[in-house]
């Protein structure tokens, strides 16, 4: 905490996202979700409940809109680029499913608004939420265009895990009490375990070492997860193949028919989750 420090490192401290950001990233965890394969079954969502100690809130609280699903499957009956079918009478093209979890934005709008810095960007490229620092101002959730942050409106642990259901709780992460915000962490406890194991074995984290709970469960393998800084990882290849790049607000694709896109990219949140468009017979 000295003037010297500020002056010496001024350039470093003044480096924003556009200039590459402050971090020298160790990893850049990211995800690809193939909507062509996603069937909307919800296995990922339940897997997330199991892995991340998500509270079951019950019907009345669900009705009030206080559910805690970090990974939610959205279902829409229309698509913006899909013209209504000739006979508008039936839902002929089925439904449009969209699994939504925290997009781990590199320029996350939730981060700068937290009054106590309980949410920030880690050197792993993750959007961290530190539960024990959170005071529950809920500003982050308000400022998340994806609405992917969930608030502990109650001490859910009082009702969600009657004995012996509480024996299932994962000890690798906290059970959240009332008054704190929570959200998808890309299964940070699994990332941590994989990194520890790799370190113990004296090697780098390999592609596939970390599987998120949703990815592991997905019956159609629609979710791919990995490190964008590893040039050999599947996600890197997919992002490349679909001509989507991090750090852009609009992708100028050489092949516009490539399916990759990021949701609300134009808001300059720079999400780390790329979706692959659904495929339809027309």
């Amino acid at each position, binding site marked *: 905490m000295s003037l010297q420090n500020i002056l010496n490192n001024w350039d470093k401290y003044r480096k924003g996202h556009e200039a590459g950001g402050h971090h020298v990233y160790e990893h850049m965890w990211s995800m690809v979700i193939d909507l062509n394969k996603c069937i909307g079954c919800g296995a990922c969502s339940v897997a997330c409940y199991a892995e991340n100690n998500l509270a079951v809130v019950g019907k009345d609280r669900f009705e009030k809109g206080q559910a805690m699903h970090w990974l939610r499957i959205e279902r829409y009956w229309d698509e913006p680029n899909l013209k209504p079918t000739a006979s508008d009478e039936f839902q002929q093209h089925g439904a449009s499913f969209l699994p939504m979890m925290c997009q781990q934005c590199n320029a996350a709008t939730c981060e700068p608004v937290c009054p106590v810095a309980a949410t920030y960007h880690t050197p792993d490229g993750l959007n961290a939420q530190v539960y024990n620092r959170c*005071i*529950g101002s*809920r500003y982050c959730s308000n400022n998340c265009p994806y609405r992917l942050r969930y608030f502990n409106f109650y001490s859910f642990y009082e009702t969600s895990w009657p004995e012996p259901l509480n024996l299932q709780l994962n000890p690798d992460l906290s059970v959240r009490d009332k008054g704190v915000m929570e959200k998808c962490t890309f299964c940070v406890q699994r990332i941590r375990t994989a990194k520890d194991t790799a370190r113990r074995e004296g090697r780098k984290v390999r592609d596939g070492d970390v599987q998120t709970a949703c990815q592991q469960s997905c019956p159609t393998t629609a979710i791919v997860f990995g490190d964008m800084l590893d040039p050999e990882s599947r996600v890197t290849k997919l992002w490349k193949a679909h001509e989507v790049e991090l750090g852009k607000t609009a992708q100028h694709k050489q092949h516009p028919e490539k399916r990759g896109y990021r949701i609300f990219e134009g808001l300059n949140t720079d999400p780390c989750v790329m979706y692959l468009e659904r495929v339809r017979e027309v």
Partner: protein
Amino acid sequence: MKDINEDIKWAQINADVLRSMETPRLGYWIAVATCVAMIACAVVAEIYQYKHGMGYGLLNWPHMWDIYIATFIFWIGMSHSGTLLSAILHIIHADWRKPIYRFAEAMTTFSLMTAGLFPIIHIGRLWNMYWVLPYVTDRGIWPNFRSPLVWDAFAISTYLTSSALFLYIGMIPDLAICRDNARGWRKKLYIALSLGWRGDDRQWRNFRRTYLLMACFLIPLAVSVHSIVSSDFAMSIMPGWHVTTFPPYFVAGALYSGCAAIITLFVLLRYFFRFEEYMTIAILEKTCKLTFAIAMAWTYLNLIEFASTWYGHDVASKEVLLQKFYGPYAPFFWMMMFCGSVVPFTLAIRKFRRHIPTMFVVSLLLNLGMWLERWMIVTPTLANAYHPIAWDTMWPGMVQWAIVFGSFGWFGLLFLVFVKIFPSVSMYEVKEMVYHRRGHAGKDTEEVLHRPVEGVRATTGRPGLEGA
């Protein structure tokens, strides 16, 4: 027409004002009891919320904020007129401010004290509220200075400190008068508070400078405070919040609701403390005209905000706007427009302006409109933001209503305590007003100045300020 009867005797001024601070009567206690009862509602609700979580206020995903924040802005807004207007009017030597600025500034301080409660009440873990403050700790963590909420904390504490000091410094000569007329505990209190004021020329000279400098600070400060509060919204990314006109819009709204509140309290004080001599219709009229001007500015800024949203053609913002017009919150939106933009036209009509009961009702309506405005800023955006899966209509629960209701009791109680302990009309400044008026009137100055003053003393025939 004259703002004030310039022939009023100075001793009478002292007597009238000190009388208002005397041992309260039954009506006062009833008012206090009412306020305490209202606070009790809020306290019960808050205890419940504290124990069981924010959910019972029916806050939800995506409505993480609701009328707590709306009421917070409301109170912050109300705090603006007092000090800001007082400071501006002081600088431009509009001396009609003098009989009414004291309670207006008190209103500022108390509404800030009320507003300050809301961020605390609304956070999920209020027992950790102090983490917002930048204190040195060996844990090596700081608040996040990027967050508009931290700006709020800075701005509000600066504003509260400054406006309380402004109020207090302006009150020192009056406190000295109280000191001279008080007994018992009050005497001790006023001795301490008047800081040894004796009214010598050195004190007056420095007092004048200090007061002016404070006023100069307070004007930009007050503007910054409400623009910072508007940053809570304008700095976000949400449609309907991310609006460039928000800072001036908020400041205008703040002045507006503050002026309306001044009218309300003006009427009440005039009636209950028989301050007809000081809080004259002429001053009321001036206040009303000012309010009308601000109301029109507010209306304009409101319309320009809609226009820019409409013209700007951002899909999400437009959606929010349309939802305000036609959605489930539309009745409240149109009521806000009615109260905020139509009702103030009564202020433009002399007949209404001079009719005190009408003005009382109108001022309440204006403030209702301003409260609705804040609600309509916070909630429709949350109800219809970018992600359509999170579109939701939410009505606040009883816990929220009770706390909002109680905040009025808290404000009322603070104000009731204030009027009995502090002079709610500035005695020395009314004297100055009379003095200068006569000084400038020219013709009868000599005569008035040379006329021996009758031996009227504040204490004569009156018990003075009793303190147990």
